[in-house]
């Protein structure tokens, strides 16, 4: 997985976060005639199936001794598969089961929204033992429509996603007010707290081709963005300081790749 952008759990966390949506400023990044652009095609195995995604790397002059670099990740294939990738049981004991059923994900400008249902089921059971075979019949079922928003920050060369808010909407009318209040809190706790715990352990750290990685780019910004209509993307912005060593590095690559006839 040398070139994998995400581990599978990282990927899930990412998509979860993208559903969450955060307003991030994304400027258009027009291809410049004097720039370098390359497309990286990768795939990552999630729940046993390879999921393709692509990244576009742009490198453009940004001042007398500096290059700007942007890596734009196209996550639309993952976005389409979000329901299967992200729907999961969040917490389960003998007497309750909390799950998230993801319906769809989408981007609007810099914001990414993840919509679905937070599902709670309560069973007759006298123990909090996680084993469910002591479980009695279903006592109460309650669903909340949820919409999560997320934000991204850059640390090092990695993009860290974090859910920043969760809007809930009562879907059914069963249960008293106390139950509903408790459920709302539980949804926030499980989706935001536990979701963010997962996200914080799985930053997005794009692997660049070694010839580019050797230029030692430093990333200082990034976020999520809309690709096409509603498509989910993410980007990292950084810079490369150019020096004599940068040029010599690239000439050495040319010699190593036999584009130049090297002399010892």
């Amino acid at each position, binding site marked *: 997985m040398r070139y994998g952008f995400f581990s599978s759990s990282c990927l899930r966390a990412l998509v979860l976060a993208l559903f969450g949506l955060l307003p991030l400023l994304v400027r258009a990044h027009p291809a410049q005639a004097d720039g370098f652009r390359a497309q990286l095609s990768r795939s990552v195995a999630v729940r046993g199936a390879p999921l393709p995604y692509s990244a576009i790397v742009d490198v453009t002059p940004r001042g007398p001794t500096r290059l700007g670099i942007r890596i734009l990740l196209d996550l639309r294939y993952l976005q389409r598969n979000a329901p299967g990738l992200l729907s999961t049981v969040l917490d389960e004991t003998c007497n309750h089961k909390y799950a998230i059923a993801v319906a769809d994900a989408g981007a609007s400008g810099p914001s990414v929204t993840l919509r679905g249902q937070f599902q709670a089921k309560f069973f007759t059971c006298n123990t909090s033992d996680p084993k469910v075979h002591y479980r009695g019949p279903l006592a109460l079922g309650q669903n909340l429509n949820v919409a999560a928003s997320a934000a991204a920050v850059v640390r090092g060369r990695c993009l860290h996603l974090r859910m920043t808010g969760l809007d809930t909407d009562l879907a059914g009318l069963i249960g008293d007010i106390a139950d509903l209040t408790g459920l709302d809190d539980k949804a926030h706790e499980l989706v935001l707290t536990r979701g963010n715990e997962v996200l914080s352990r799985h930053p997005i750290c794009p692997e660049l081709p070694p010839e580019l990685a050797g230029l030692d780019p430093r990333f200082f910004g990034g976020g999520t963005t809309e690709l096409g209509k509603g498509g989910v993307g993410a980007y990292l912005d950084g810079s490369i300081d150019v020096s004599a060593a940068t040029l010599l590095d690239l000439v050495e690559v040319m010699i190593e790749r036999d*584009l130049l006839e090297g002399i010892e």
Partner: protein
Amino acid sequence: MLLPLARALGLVCLCAAPAAARDVSFSVNSTLKTETNEIPYSAQITLSDAGASRVGFHSRADLRQFQAVLPEMLSLDLNQTCRAHLELGMEQVRARNDALDLSGRISAALYECEGLRTDPATRGAAIYQQGLTLELTAAAVLEDQCLFIRVDQVALTPDRPTAIDLDLEQEVLERARALAGAAAEILSRVPICPDFPPELRALDAKLQKGGTEDIGSGHLGAYLEGHIDVSPSAIVALLNALQHRGVLPPRP
């Protein structure tokens, strides 16, 4: 050697022992362009770290093939008129330090010629014949980022002194000098310029000095020295060259 030991012990002060500047070397095959031909040559180019945004450039070219064609290129039969016939046979070209020594033979003949006729077919009897040894010394000068070989000394030695007619001898010397000048002019019109492989053409090398040199046994070589200013656009150009050659992934 004490230096590696001292370095291992961390005892070497950078100011005392100039750190070996990092450099990379490669060879390039190129051509010199004469007015009628292209003469292949190879050069070794060394690029070195010469400051934060400056790369030193040093090229050493092996010009033996150019040297080999010079005798024929500079042998001339340009001076055929009603009055005179001079031929230059360039025989030897040798590099000597930073100079180029050329030597050859001129055969000259003057004829009777009426009025202002120019056609050799109208000439009369030969009135004076002389053989001369021509020796030229040339040096390379840097102009417009290329080297040009300029003749700076011309020596003409008649085979036999003649006291019969000093005017005729003087005329032959003047015509021979003009012939030597024509050869020097041809030599000076072959620029020796730095040439990069296609992948590095975007780099803008600025030459600061250069010259010809003896690369052994009088064989002709040339060196060019200068620098390349490292700019972001130069780096982008190298990335695009790597992409063009398939080292980096393609554009979308």
